[in-house]
């Protein structure tokens, strides 16, 4: 007879078989048997966070920077409910997470027992799937299934709820064999006919654009390489969404910058005026499209996505191609080489007028700002951070708000998986714990959280985690004492009624850093910024960098959605000409 293992042991055997090296977690009554077993499994290292939301975001940072699923372990009741924000965030941004939660013993389920919550009920709408394991015999295969669901097709979070008595019960464990066949939910449904159609559209177009998103990053590093090849072969301009940054080199000439609400003037205008839009792994999010009725009115639209439900959800497209981005691009490049070996040459003439138009838009220099020698402009701070860290393989996370948009505009990425930001859900407090996860995955790399002072206070406690595990993350706070994006909207839409967007009492971040046992640095003047940033980079410990920036600065350019996509609101230099009035107010 084969050896019997407890539920807790089986969990770890599964994690071992799945190649899990790190789990982010927090102990509690309903997961004690699992924590008790931790000592017997050396290949799995546990990172103790300070709050379960932090565990979730750290697992997200780990997953997005490494391409492997992130694993978190939380207790029942409040442990699980605290993880809900992170699970929802991962669901919106398609991040593979496996959340293991403890549950009260099966005989107490439904009795309102201590720390009981209907975890599978609560997390049903924010996971791809979840399981309550009531029978020890199901545990092993459920865990493996959980990893499969999280990582295949469009990735996302899953949750396995394990009652405490099941963690004690014993059964056999059969070693996991990775199966080639995937549960039928992966969709490489495209055919050569679709690819031929795509190439036909591409060769007919005189105003084409690639609009690419997080799907390229999720498809793996090879997809980004293939994308580069495709863009070079065609000579078409390319813009990426917030989540797609890094899938194409930020300093390349064919790259128009990020598009969308705070995207570049050239990217948004090109999207509006193009005659062929090739969407690769993006989802026509409302921050991208603005008003749907007036979105890119004269273009043929192609949508390449692994998730069939993304297609025609927000915008009707002419040619849907359902499949993994890397596979679709491979086929496309192959076919171009076969059918039109001189595509780039023959096409150059045809799209040269289009490029001229784009250069005109580009010359507006829409990310420009009026710099100052007195106060640090937040854009300037991001620019300096970029210049001083670009020679390193730097990983950037962000919180949510103005600083996030400035980071997206001014920090240039040339590799995928280097940019971790909460786009879909827009979770303030994402960046610091995400940086913890990124640093765990890449212990020798520079990891910077570009933060706002309001966001970072939401999960500030995780700096204690960073100190405990000597994770030298850098928290680069653009401190303007306001919830900047809220204040910006109040200024533009609500007659400068800054209702509750100013934080009248902020901690002294330098002292706070010292209290946590890490290093605090403050910069107040532009001329000291470089030295301070260099000091931060050279510090081999966690750093909280309090960068006091201009309090009034707004984030431009911006699409006030009442106006068509091609009439962006530009920065202060252009603002007098272009005020938001009447109808536009309702739509931003």
């Amino acid at each position, binding site marked *: 007879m084969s050896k019997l293992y407890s539920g807790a042991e089986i969990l770890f055997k599964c994690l071992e078989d799945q190649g899990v090296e790190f789990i982010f977690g927090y102990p509690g009554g309903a997961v004690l048997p699992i924590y008790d077993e931790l000592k017997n499994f050396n290949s799995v290292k546990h990172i103790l966070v300070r709050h379960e939301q932090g565990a979730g975001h750290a697992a997200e940072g780990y997953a997005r920077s490494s391409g492997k699923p992130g694993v978190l372990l939380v207790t029942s009741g409040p442990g699980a409910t605290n993880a809900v924000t992170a699970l929802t965030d991962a669901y919106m941004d398609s991040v593979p997470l496996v959340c293991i939660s403890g549950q009260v013993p099966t005989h107490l389920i439904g009795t309102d027992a201590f720390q009981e919550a209907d975890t*599978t*009920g609560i997390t*049903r*709408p924010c996971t*791809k*799937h979840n399981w*309550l394991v009531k029978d020890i015999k199901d545990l092993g295969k459920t865990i493996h299934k959980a990893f499969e*669901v999280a990582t295949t097709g469009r990735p996302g979070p899953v949750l396995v709820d394990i009652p405490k008595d099941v963690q004690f019960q014993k059964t056999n464990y059969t070693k996991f064999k990775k199966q080639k066949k995937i*549960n039928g*939910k992966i969709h490489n449904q495209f055919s050569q006919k679709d690819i031929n159609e795509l190439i036909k559209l591409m060769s007919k177009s005189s105003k084409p654009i690639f609009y690419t998103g997080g799907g390229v990053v999720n498809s793996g590093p090879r997809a980004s390489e293939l994308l580069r090849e495709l863009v070079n072969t065609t000579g078409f301009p390319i813009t990426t969404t917030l989540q797609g940054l890094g899938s194409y080199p930020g300093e390349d000439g064919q790259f128009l910058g990020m598009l969308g609400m705070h995207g570049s003037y050239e990217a948004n205008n090109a999207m509006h005026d193009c005659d062929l839009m090739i969407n690769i792994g993006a989802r026509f999010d*409302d921050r991208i499209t*603005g*008003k*749907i*009725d007036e979105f890119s009115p004269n273009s043929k639209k192609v949508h390449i996505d692994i*998730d*069939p*439900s993304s*297609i*025609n*959800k927000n915008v*009707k497209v002419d040619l849907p191609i359902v499949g993994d981005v890397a596979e679709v691009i491979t086929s496309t490049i192959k076919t171009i080489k076969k059918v039109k070996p001189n595509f780039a040459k023959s096409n150059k003439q045809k799209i040269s007028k289009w490029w001229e138009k784009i250069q005109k838009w580009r010359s507006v220099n829409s990310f420009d700002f009026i710099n100052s020698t007195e106060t640090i402009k937040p854009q300037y701070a991001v620019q300096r951070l970029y210049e001083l860290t670009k020679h390193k393989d730097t990983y950037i996370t962000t919180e949510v708000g103005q600083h996030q948009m400035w980071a997206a505009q001014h920090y240039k990425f040339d590799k995928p998986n280097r940019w971790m930001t909460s786009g879909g859900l827009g979770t303030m407090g994402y960046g610091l714990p995400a940086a913890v996860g990124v640093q765990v995955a890449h212990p020798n790399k520079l990891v910077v959280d570009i933060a706002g002072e309001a966001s970072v206070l939401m999960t500030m406690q995780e700096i204690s985690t960073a100190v405990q595990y000597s994770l030298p993350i850098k928290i680069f706070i653009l401190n303007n004492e306001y919830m900047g994006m809220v204040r910006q*909207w109040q200024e533009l*839409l*609500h007659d400068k009624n800054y209702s509750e967007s100013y934080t009248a009492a902020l901690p002294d971040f330098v002292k706070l850093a010292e209290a946590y046992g890490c290093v605090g640095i403050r910069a107040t003047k532009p001329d000291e910024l470089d030295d301070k940033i260099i000091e931060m980079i050279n510090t081999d410990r966690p750093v909280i960098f309090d960068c006091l920036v201009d309090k009034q600065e707004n984030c431009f350019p911006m699409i006030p*959605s009442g106006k068509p996509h091609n009439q962006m609101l530009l920065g202060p230099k252009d603002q007098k000409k272009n005020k938001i009035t009447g109808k536009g*107010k*309702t*739509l*931003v």
Partner: protein
Amino acid sequence: MANSKSAYSTPGKQGKFDTHIIVVWVDNETGVLARVVGLFSGRGYNIESLAVAEIDPKLNISRITIVTTGTPQVIEQIKLQLKKLVPVHKVADFKREDKKVIFKEMALFKVVGNSLKKEKAFKACKKYNAVILDKTKNSYVIQITALRREIDTMTKNLKKFGLVSVSRTGAVAMTRGAEIFK
């Protein structure tokens, strides 16, 4: 909405609503109905009626029949979103007007009154496969199977014959002919 100050765009033009019958084959496991229904409520889709029962105890398969209304785009989304759920095997979609599909609902009527009233009630039901399931001196329980709007009409018409209680199922559907939905 038009005058509100919002961080979101105002709704665009809305398409025409159609009534569709969606049939979903699912693993009969805990929470599967909640997943399906939660998908509808979470994404703001309608459910006009719902019928669900296990149809294959060996393979553990249940069949859920949902009557819903929506624009063609919404109906397409409903199908695609349903197909993404892990316990869902296949999804069929029929227009209510589709002649190749049979739709039926069942209703139970309790009629209380003298024998004349009871008989009149039963007679009125006759063309809908009426069966008397229970009779007492002053009451009938009548079962009929019919289309939704026919049952609606009967519910109205039976009032005058002493209808005191109505219980009805959601619609179930099946294609005509020898073919089955794959």
